[in-house]
C-alpha cells in the first residue's frame, strides 16, 4: 500500500521535472543565443546591427538590414499569395463542400503539410524557377535568372497553405450554427452570411492564423535558401534576389568558426529570429486558446 503511494509521489516529481525542463527550453534557448551573440552586441549595438547594410565579415562589419529586408519581402509575398487562397479554400471546405468532397479535400491539405521543406526546395528549383525565368519575368524585366524573392515567396506560400487552411477551418467551425441560421432566415444568401456574419465573427482567429503563418515563414530555411538567390543586398523588386536571415545562418555555418565574431553574428541572427517568432507565436496562441475557451464555456 505504502509502496504504491510512494511510487506515485516519486513519478509525479519526475514528471514535474521533465515538464519544467522542456518548457524552460524556451528560456534556455533565448539565454544561450543571447550569451553567444553578446560579443557582437557589445561591439556595435542593437540599433546599428539591425539598420546597417554593410556586410563585410572579414573586416568585422555586420549589418543585418539586407537580410531583414530579404526575410520581410519573402514573407510578405508568401502571405499576399497564400491568405486569399487559403481563406477561400477554408470557406469552401467548411461552408460549401458536402461530406464526400470534404473527405477528399482535407486529407490532401494534410498530405501537403507532411512534405519536407527540402522537397519544396527541389520543386521550387525544378518548377517555379523556370516558370519565373521563362514565362513571368520576361513580361516585366529584361532579364532574371528566376532565383528571386518572388520564387521564395511562392514556395513559402505553398508551404504555409496547410497551416492557414487548417487553423482558419477550425476557427470557422467554432462559429455557432444559430448565428448563420439567423442571417439566412432574414433572407441573406450564403455568401452574404459569410461576408457579414462569419468573416466578421472569425476575424480574431483569422488574424491569429496569419500571425502564425508569418512566424512560420520567417523561420523557413532550406526551401527559401534554394530558390532565393542569396545576394546580400536589399531587394527592390520581386525579381531581385534576396537573402533571408535563416538562409544566412544555414549557408555560413562552415566558415563561422574561422572568422572572428562571425559565429557571434550568426547567433545574433538566430536570436533575432527567435525573439520575433516567439512574440508572434505567443500573440497568436493566446488569441486561439482564448477562442477555444470561449467555445468550451
Amino acid at each position: 500500500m505504502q509502496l504504491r503511494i510512494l511510487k506515485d509521489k516519486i513519478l509525479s516529481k519526475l514528471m514535474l521535472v521533465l515538464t519544467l525542463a522542456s518548457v524552460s527550453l524556451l528560456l534556455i534557448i533565448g539565454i544561450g543565443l543571447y550569451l553567444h551573440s553578446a560579443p557582437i552586441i557589445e561591439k556595435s549595438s542593437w540599433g546599428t546591427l539591425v539598420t546597417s547594410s554593410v556586410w563585410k565579415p572579414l573586416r568585422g562589419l555586420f549589418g543585418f538590414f539586407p537580410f531583414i529586408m530579404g526575410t520581410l519581402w519573402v514573407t510578405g509575398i508568401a502571405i499576399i499569395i497564400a491568405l486569399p487562397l487559403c481563406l477561400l479554400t477554408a470557406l469552401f471546405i467548411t461552408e460549401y463542400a458536402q461530406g464526400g468532397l470534404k473527405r477528399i479535400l482535407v486529407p490532401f491539405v494534410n498530405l501537403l503539410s507532411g512534405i519536407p521543406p527540402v522537397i519544396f526546395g527541389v520543386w521550387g528549383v525544378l518548377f517555379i524557377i523556370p516558370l519565373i525565368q521563362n514565362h513571368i519575368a520576361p513580361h516585366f524585366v529584361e532579364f532574371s535568372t528566376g532565383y528571386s524573392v518572388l520564387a521564395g515567396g511562392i514556395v513559402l506560400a505553398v508551404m504555409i497553405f496547410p497551416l492557414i487552411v487548417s487553423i482558419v477551418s477550425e476557427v470557422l467551425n467554432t462559429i455557432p450554427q444559430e448565428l448563420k441560421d439567423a442571417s439566412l432566415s432574414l433572407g441573406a444568401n450564403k455568401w452574404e452570411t459569410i461576408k457579414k456574419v462569419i468573416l466578421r465573427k472569425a476575424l480574431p482567429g483569422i488574424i491569429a492564423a496569419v500571425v502564425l503563418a508569418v512566424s512560420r515563414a520567417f523561420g523557413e530555411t532550406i526551401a527559401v535558401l534554394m530558390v532565393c538567390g542569396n545576394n546580400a543586398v536589399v531587394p527592390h523588386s520581386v525579381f531581385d534576389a534576396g537573402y533571408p536571415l535563416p538562409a544566412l545562418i544555414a549557408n555560413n555555418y562552415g566558415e563561422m568558426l574561422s572568422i572572428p565574431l562571425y559565429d557571434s553574428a550568426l547567433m545574433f541572427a538566430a536570436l533575432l529570429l527567435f525573439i520575433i517568432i516567439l512574440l508572434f507565436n505567443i500573440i497568436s496562441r493566446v488569441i486561439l486558446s482564448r477562442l477555444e475557451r470561449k467555445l468550451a464555456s
Partner: protein
Amino acid sequence: MKLRKTEEVFFKILMILAAVIVCGSFFLIVGTIFAKGIPYMSLDMLTKTPGGGFYIGKEGGILNAIIGSLYVAGGATILGLFISVPVAIFINIYINGKKFLSDSLRVAFDVLFGIPSIVYGAFGFLIMVYFGFRASLLGGIIAVTLLVIPILVRTLDEVIRTVPRELGDAALSLGATRWEMAKVVLRQIKPGIFTAILLSFGRAIGDVASVLFTAGFSDNIPTSLHEPAATLPLAIFFQLSSPVEEVQGRGYASALILTIIVLIITVLSEILIKKFSKHKS
C-alpha cells in the same frame, strides 16, 4: 436582386478555384518530383554508399544517408517519447483541475512547436560547442529530439483528452493512485501513441536545418554515436548544388526516395487518426 445572386456565384467559383489550387499544388509537387526522379532511380541508389564522394562521384547510391536519417529520426523519436509521454500525462492527469496551469503549459508547447528548426539547429550547435563534441550522430539526435518534443507532447495531449473522463475517475474511485490511473489511460490511447510516433518521425526525417550544424555529413554509414552521419534531406541539398549533372540527377532520385518515405508515413498516420476518431464517437 440579380446582382446578389451573381456575386454569390462569382465567389463560389473563386472558392472552388482556390481549393483546386491549394489541393492541386500537392499533385504538382509530387508530380514534379516523380517525373524528374524516376529516370535516375536505380537499385544501386538504395543499396550502395556513394563512390568517389557524394559531391562529384557518379557511382553508388545514398544508403549512407538513408541509414543516417533512420538513425537520427528513430533515435530522436525514441528519446522524445521518453520525455513527452510523462509530460503529456503530467499535464492531463496530475495537474487536473488547475485549468489555467494546464492551458498555459499547452500554449508553451505550441510556442515551442512554432520555433523554427534552424533555431533548434543553432541551439544544438551551442550545446555541442559547450560540451566540446564535434558534429556527430549524437549531436543530430539531440537537436532533432528538441524539435520533435513539442510535436509529441501536443499530439499525445490531444489524444489523452479524447479518453472519457469517467474512465479515469472510475479508476480513481476504486482507490487507484494517479499513476495507476495514468496506466489505464495509456492503455486506451495505444493507437494514438503510434500516430504521435509517426508524425514525429515524419517531421524528423525531413528536416534539414536542425541537422545542418549538428549531424555533419559522411560518405560512410555511422558505426558509433560520435561519428558524423549523413542525412537524406542534406544529401539532396548537397547533390543538387553539385556542378556535375549526374550527381544532380541522383539528387532528384534521392528527393523521390524521401518523398515516398514521407508520403507513406503521412498516409499511415492519417488512417490511424481516422480510425482513432471513429473509436471515440
